């Protein structure tokens, strides 16, 4: 998903927003039982209301993710209670926990296996940046080095409410996307399936240390090592 500020399409939340019709014509048509809307609106309404997450837990944060599916928080209210065990059936990858260097290749592979359109939520400090274990020799300092992340949830662990909020944020983003229409710069589907190279071990670190397509080290500061890991 792209930065919403760059998007040319306005946010199409309601029926009347999506199609240019004057009110008189619209009410005339509604009387006759005709509702005019754009295919995009309908598509996005359906897509954002049934985001199926992958049943994929990595560490402590996964427990809070499970909690959000429990009866108190009830993620089913947002249409996302169907946790799929297979990446082939999932729309959303919630990276819930510490990604170690041994696990990072599998996470990227799972992302590659998911069908388009696919979204990623980085849950918790660990998935965002390595979190409390950032200094560890075996901990990846943020999953966004290898796959594009749509929503970040800070916290250690984030509360289930925060998980729900991130889901709502994602739904908002989905509703801004275009499924049809030429020349859109915020398309829901891209050509083919987005696949990113799976990192592998070489010597003492993952190779490559990050995927330049999705992540660039921050501005070079003095004393910053080559791989951008301070």
């Amino acid at each position: 998903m792209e930065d919403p500020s760059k998007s040319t399409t306005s946010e199409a939340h309601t029926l009347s927003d999506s199609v240019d019709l004057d009110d008189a014509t619209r009410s005339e048509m509604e009387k006759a039982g005709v509702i005019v809307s754009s295919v995009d609106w309908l598509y996005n309404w359906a897509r954002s209301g049934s985001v199926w997450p992958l049943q994929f837990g990595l560490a402590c944060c996964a427990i809070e993710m499970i909690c959000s599916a429990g009866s108190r928080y009830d993620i089913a209210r947002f249409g996302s209670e169907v946790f799929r065990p297979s990446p082939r059936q999932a729309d959303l990858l919630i990276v819930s926990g510490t990604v170690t260097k041994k696990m990072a290749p599998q996470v990227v592979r799972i992302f590659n296996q998911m069908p388009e359109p696919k979204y990623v939520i980085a849950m918790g400090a660990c998935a965002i940046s390595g979190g409390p274990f950032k200094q560890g020799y075996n901990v990846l300092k943020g999953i966004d080095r290898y796959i594009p992340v749509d929503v970040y949830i800070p916290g250690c662990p984030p509360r289930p409410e925060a998980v729900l909020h991130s889901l709502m944020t994602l739904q908002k983003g989905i509703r801004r996307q275009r499924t049809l229409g030429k020349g859109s710069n915020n398309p829901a589907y891209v050509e083919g399936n987005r696949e990113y190279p799976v990192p592998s071990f070489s010597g003492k670190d993952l190779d490559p240390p990050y995927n330049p397509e999705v992540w660039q080290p921050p501005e070079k500061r003095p004393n910053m090592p080559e791989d951008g890991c301070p």
Partner: protein
Amino acid sequence: MTMESSVVAGSEPTVEPRGFELIEREGLETNLLEVSMGPHHPSTHGVFRMDVKLDGETVTELRPVFGYLHRNHEKLAEDMGYLGSMPFTDRLDYFCSMTNNWAYALAGEKMIDLEVPERAEYVRVIMAELTRLVNHIMLVGFFVNDLGALGTPLLYALREREKILDLFEWASGARMMCNYMRFGGLRNDLPEGWLTKCREVVDAFPYFLDEYEKLLVENEIILVRTQNVGVLKPELAINAGITGPMLRASGVNYDLRKVDAYGVYDRFPFRVPMGEVGDCYDRFMVRILEMRESIKILRQAMDELPEGPIMGEAPRVFKPPAGEIYGRIEGPKGELGFYLVSDGTAKPYRYRVRPPSLVNLTVLEDLCLGHKVADAVVILGSVDIVLGEVDR
């Protein structure tokens, strides 16, 4: 990883030599099938991998692969002050942060001979037993989930867990990562009204357990799937260093709350539930019965909770004399120990966790051999592992 042959003297090795082999059976040629379950597999309770070799559906070899969640806990702890590791212990076994805190605090207190005030000891017992409830209820939920009862029992368990997590949050400020105990006592006293609420939760818990037991304990599918599956012999259990409910399910009476009587556990009369056969069903039942005993302890601890300070005379800078210490408690999963080596500075020279999950996992292959692959999932569920603790 087979322990049977090496530990029980005089017994026959039960496993054939390994390797890729063709099996001829009435003219049919079949191959052994190698399956890698995990690290992303819904049954493995996290990022754990089992490399299984199957003959048809029967497990002939099982190799556990760990390390997918190795977060350098021990190495990081050697690089910071003693107290700095306290929040990291929360993240070892993320269901049971309170007991993890306690084990670490106990090791630290042993190092400098620190007295813990009475009230703090009682609050620790209350927190530890609440943690035991949380852990066992979640274990049973996940276990039945593995058996194929998708959802419902787990949702029931989550509902009850939330009530206890509310108590934790009220006392410590966090739902899961409580970071509540300190060397010499507790971080803060119980808030006003906490005990009343706790009593409500504890009093309501047996009703929930009744309902849960009625649903599960005599359920025919559970009986068929778990009885005589994954039998752990007491000799093997002792030799492999198994502790906790898993050991007691094999019929060995060993509970550190009785053996060590750390804290004020010697003041509470409670029984230690034990199994007879050592199969998955016993492991499941021992946990259910343990919850009832925990409620007994909780009731008594709440009644007897004394007033007074909650923090002993802990030094401002924790700098133990050179030496080594091992502090252990009975965690919900087994013996949780912290082994600290001090060289007289403010940082530990060596910091080692004895994780009950990892040690209990070592017998996995022995339990699974000869069973169907679907049973391997159930057996793994009954072992009760948390990967944060296995890999650290």
